[in-house]
C-alpha cells in the first residue's frame, strides 16, 4: 500500500471554491493531486446522498466547499 494515493471527492461551489481552485491554477500554486472535483452550482445543491454515495463508491474522503 505504499503507493496508495487517496481520492478525495470534492464538491465545489461554482462561484466560490471552484473559482478559488481556478485562481490557484492561475497563480501556479501547487497542491496534492488527490482531489477529484465535482462542480456544483452552489453548496446548497449538496445532498447528504452525494457524500454517502461517494464514500460507498470507494472515495477516501469527501470535501464540500462553498
Amino acid at each position: 500500500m505504499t503507493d496508495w494515493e487517496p481520492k478525495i471527492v470534492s464538491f465545489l461551489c461554482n462561484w466560490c471554491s471552484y473559482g478559488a481552485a481556478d485562481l490557484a491554477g492561475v497563480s501556479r500554486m501547487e497542491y496534492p493531486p488527490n482531489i477529484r472535483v465535482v462542480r456544483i452550482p452552489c453548496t446548497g445543491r449538496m445532498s447528504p446522498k452525494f457524500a454517502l454515495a461517494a464514500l460507498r463508491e470507494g472515495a477516501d474522503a469527501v470535501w464540500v466547499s462553498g
Partner: protein
Amino acid sequence: MITFKLNGKKVQGEEGQYILQVAEKYGVEIPTLCHHKALEPAGMCRLCTVELFDGRRTRFVTACNYPIWEGMEVKTDSEAVHQGRKLIVELLLARCPEVPLLQKLAEDYGIEKPRFKTEDDTCILCGLCVRMCEKMGNSAIALTGRGVEMKVDTPFHIQTDICMACGACASVCPTGHITLEKIRQEITRKQNVELIPSEYDMGLKGRKPVYVPYAQAVPNTPAIDRDVCIHFKTGGCKVCTQFCGVNAIDHSQEDEVVELEVGSIILSPGFKPFDPSRFDTYNYAKHPNVITSMEMERILSASGPTGGHLVRLSDHKEPKKIAWFQCVGSRDLNRCDNAYCSSVCCMYAIKEAVIAKEHAGDDLDCAIFFMDMRTHGKDFERFYNNAQGKGVRFVRSRVHSIDPIHGSDELAVRYVTEQGEIETETFDMIVLSIGLEIAPEVMALADKLGIELTDGNFCKTTSFEPVETSRKGIFVCGAFQGPKDIPQSVIDSSAAAASAGEILAAARDTCTRQPEVVPETNVVGERPRIGVFVCRCGINIAGVVDVPAVRDYAASLPYVEYVTDNLYSCSQDTQEVMTQIIRGKKLNRVVVAACTPKTHEPLFQETLTNAGLNKYLFEMCNIRNQDSWVHKNNPELATEKAKDLVRMAVSKVALMQPLEEAELEIKQVAMVIGGGIAGMAAARSLAKQGYQTHIVERSDRLGGQAHRLFRTSDGQEVAGNLKAMIKEIGDDPLITVHLKSEIKQVEGFVGNFKTEIVKEGKSEELEHGVAVIATGGAPLSPDEYCYGDDPRILSTLELDEKLMADDPELRKLESAVFIQCVGSRDDQRPYCSRVCCTHSIENAIELKERNPDADVYILYRDIRTYGEREYLYKQAREKGIIFIRYRLDAKPRVELDGKDLTVTVTDHVLQQPVQIRADLLTLATAIIPNKDEALAQFFKVPLNDDGFFVEKHAKLGPSEFATDGVFLCGLAHYPKPIDESIVQGRAAASRAITLLARKKIHTSGQVAETDPMLCSSCGVCISICPYSAPSFIPEDARMFAGKAQINPVLCKGCGLCVASCRSGAIHLKGFDNDQIFAQIFAVNQD
C-alpha cells in the same frame, strides 16, 4: 519533412531543425546546460552529446546544434553516450566544485569526487550570458581569451557603460556565476537593484516587463511595459516571441489615435491616493513601518505581497501594535490643500483594523487616532460598534509626529488625550489613512473639456443635477464628482449612464447586430455519441499532462465516438474545425478537457450552438487550472487525475439532456412606488428614455419630505427646484401619476407584474415589467428633550419651515441650540442618519446670518460633514458657531422652568457642565424609513432590522434587489440628502432600463423542475428558496393541485430545494442527481 530514427523509433522534423528540438517534441529528454529556446545553439557544454549512426559509422555530436537529415539514426541513451556525459560532468565539476547544479548532476551520474584537479571557478563557459546579451542588442560582454584563459568579460577588461544592468545574463546563467547582486556591486554600483514596482501591489512587490496587472484583471492578457522592455531600448531581445505558441506578440504595434463620434461623455477618472511623503513629521518616506492604508490593503490581501500574512515591512515580523492615523491629506489646510473630508477613510480604517485582528488574532492591539468618526454609510455605524466590541481602540486625537526609536524598528507617538493629558505610546506599524484627491492629469482633462471644478478640484455639479457637469452632455460619476465610497460610486455610475441615456434615447438599438441562428438538431432518444476534445493549451497542459494518453484513454470510454487533441481548443480555427467535426461525426454530446468552464464554457457552448447542438449537451473538464498548473511536479499523477476527470465528465455528459431556455417578454412599462424626490427622479429618467411609467403615491401630492426642506447643502432653494420637478413630471405624457393610491396586491414576476392599486376606494390593475421602490422615510418624532412641551423646541424640518416662511422671530434670537443625533446612533436605532450634521450646520449658519449677534451652539457626538460638506463646518466655526461635543452616556439635559429654556451639557474641552439659556432649540431628529412590510411581501424583497430595504449587494448592487425586476432608491434604502436621492432615483431607473431594453429575457436552462407525481407537498422547497421560485399549484388547478411547482424565471439554479427535497421530487436540470451520481460513480472506476 525529414524522417529519421530516434532511439530506434521513426520520428519527423522540419528541415533546419536540430536533433534536440525534435527530441523535445517527441518527449525524449536530452540533458543540456547551454541551450536556450530563444538563442542560437552553440554546443558549448557538450552535455547534449548523442550517438549518431550515418549508415557507415558511429560518431558523437552535440544534439543542440546538429541539424537533422533524412535517414540518420540517433541514440540518446546508449551506454557510450552515458559514459561520455559522465566524463563531461566530471570535468565541469572539477572546474566548478561548488556549483549546486553540477553537484546534483554528478550525483545523478554517480560521481563522488572528480578525478581531476579541482579549481574554484563557478563559470562553465556555456556562453548563454554572452548570447543573451547579444540577443538583447547590447553585446556588452563576450567570451575573451583562448584555451584555459577563456572567460566571460567586457572588452579590454574594463568597466563598461554599455551594460544596462538588465539582468538578462543573470536570468540565464545556469550556475549562479552571474547574479543581480554581482551586477549591482560590480557593474552598476548602485545602492539598490531596482525592481519594477507592481502598481497593483503599491510597489511592495516587483513585476516583470511583460505582465498581467493582477490575477483578476480584465482582459486577462499580458501587456508589455514599453518603458522598461529591453526591445524598446535596443531593438534586440524579443525572447518572449519565441515562447509564445500562437505568435500573439507584436512589438511593432504603435499607439493609434482613434476618433469617435459620440453623443455624450461620462467622466469616471477616479481619484489618486494622497501621497504623504511630504509630511516630514510622519516619516513615511523614510521609515518602512510607516505605510499608507493602500499598502495596508495589499498586506492584508491573500494575494498580496506577503500572501495575506500580516507583517511589518522592516523585518517581516508580526506586529503586536498597529496604529491608524486618520485624515492624512484630508480636512487639513496646514500641511496640504485638502480642506474636504475624504468620506471613506474612517470606514476603511475600521475595516483594516478588524481584518488585521482577524489575521493576527485578538492579541493584536489596533488603535485608530481620529478627529470625528464618520461612519455615515449603511450599516457602517454597526460595524463601528462591533469593532469597539472586538477591542479596536478609538483615540480621539490628531497626532503631530511619528518618531522612529533608535536601535529598534518601533515608532513612538506622542498625543494629547481627551482629558488633555500627554501620552506616549510605541507601535510596530503605523498606517496613514490617506485621503482621496484629484490627479493633476484629471484637472488638465477637465480644463481641456472646459468643465468647472470645485475648490477641492472635484467636478462641479449641483444638488438637483448631481451627475451633470457644467458642460451639457458631459456627465461625471465616482470620486471625481466628490470623494465617495464604492456603493455611492456605483449609484453615481448608473445615474450617469441614465443621464446619458436620456439624451441618447432616440439612438437606442441603432448599432446592434443580430447573430445568425443555426437550427437545433433534435437528439432526444438518440444513443449518446460523445466527442472528447483534449486541449494541449500550448505547453500549459501538454507540458505536464500526457495529453495523447488522456486522449487515447478517452477513446476507450463508453459512448465516446470521437477523440482528438488540439493545440489551442479555444482558437478561432479550432472552433471552426470542432463545428465541422460535431456535424460530420454526428456527435450529440461534447466534452472539452481544457481550462476552466468559468471562463470558457460560454465559448464552447457557442460552438455547439453553431453546430446545431443544444448548448447544454456539453461538459467541460478542468485539466489546466485544476490540474496541470497545480501539479507540475507530479506529471504522472496529474495525468491520472486528468483521466479521472475526463471519465467523470464523459459519464456526466452522456446523461445531459437538451434544455430549453424560457423566453419571457418584458412589459415595457415601469412602476415607481413613492412620489418623493427619489421616485420622481426615477420616473423622470424612465420616461425621458421612452418608457411609460406609473407613479403610485400614497399622499395627495408629489414631492414627499422635500416640501419641508429649505435649502440643499450647496445652498440651493429646495422649493423652486421641487416645483419645477413636479411640473416636469406632470407635463410628461409618458408618466401617469396616481395620487392617494395604495398598493393592494401584486402578482407576477420580472417582466410581468400585475399590481392592483386602490385609489379612494376604487381599485385598478396596472401591468408593468419592472418596479422601483421609493417609499421614502420620515423624521422621527422624538420623545426626549421636552419635544412638544414648548413652541421654542423644534425638529429640524420645523426649523426649515420657519426659515422658509422667514419667521421674524428668527431674526431676534439671542441664543439658539442644536442637539444632534436625536434618535440616531443609539441602542434603538444603531445607524447614523447621515444628513443631520450638515443640515444643522447649514441652518446654524443661516441663523447666524439672519442675526449675527445670536449665540449659536451645536451639541454633537461626531460631526459628519463628509466630502466637500466639510467646508460648511469650517465656515460655521469661522462664523463663531460654538460646537460642544457630548457623549451618549452624558446626553444634554433640557429644562423648562417657566419662561426659561435651558440646555445643560458637559463641555468636552472644559470637562465641566455648561448651561445654555436658549431661545430656540432644534433637535436633529433621525430619519426613519416607512417600514412597509406588506410591500416587502408583495415584491418578495427583504427589510433589515432598522426597516430599510436590503439591496442586492451592499457595494455592487445598491439600487436593485436580489429579486429580478425590482429596484430601490431614496430614503427607503438609507437616509440621504437630496442630491444622493436624485442620483439613486436615476440609478434605479438605469438598472431597470438594462432589463426593459432587452425586451425579452432568456432564463437559464439550468433550473429546477418538480415532478408532481413524486411531490409530497411538504413545502420545504418553498420555505428554503431564497428567490421565492417554488410555489404550490393552486387548489383549483385541474391537475396536481397542492403540489409544488417552480417558476423557471425566478429560479437561479442553486439547487438548494433539490437537496432539501426528501421526496426526490425536484430535478436540477444540468446538475441532476443522476448526472452528479454519474460523476461520483466514475471517480473510482478502473
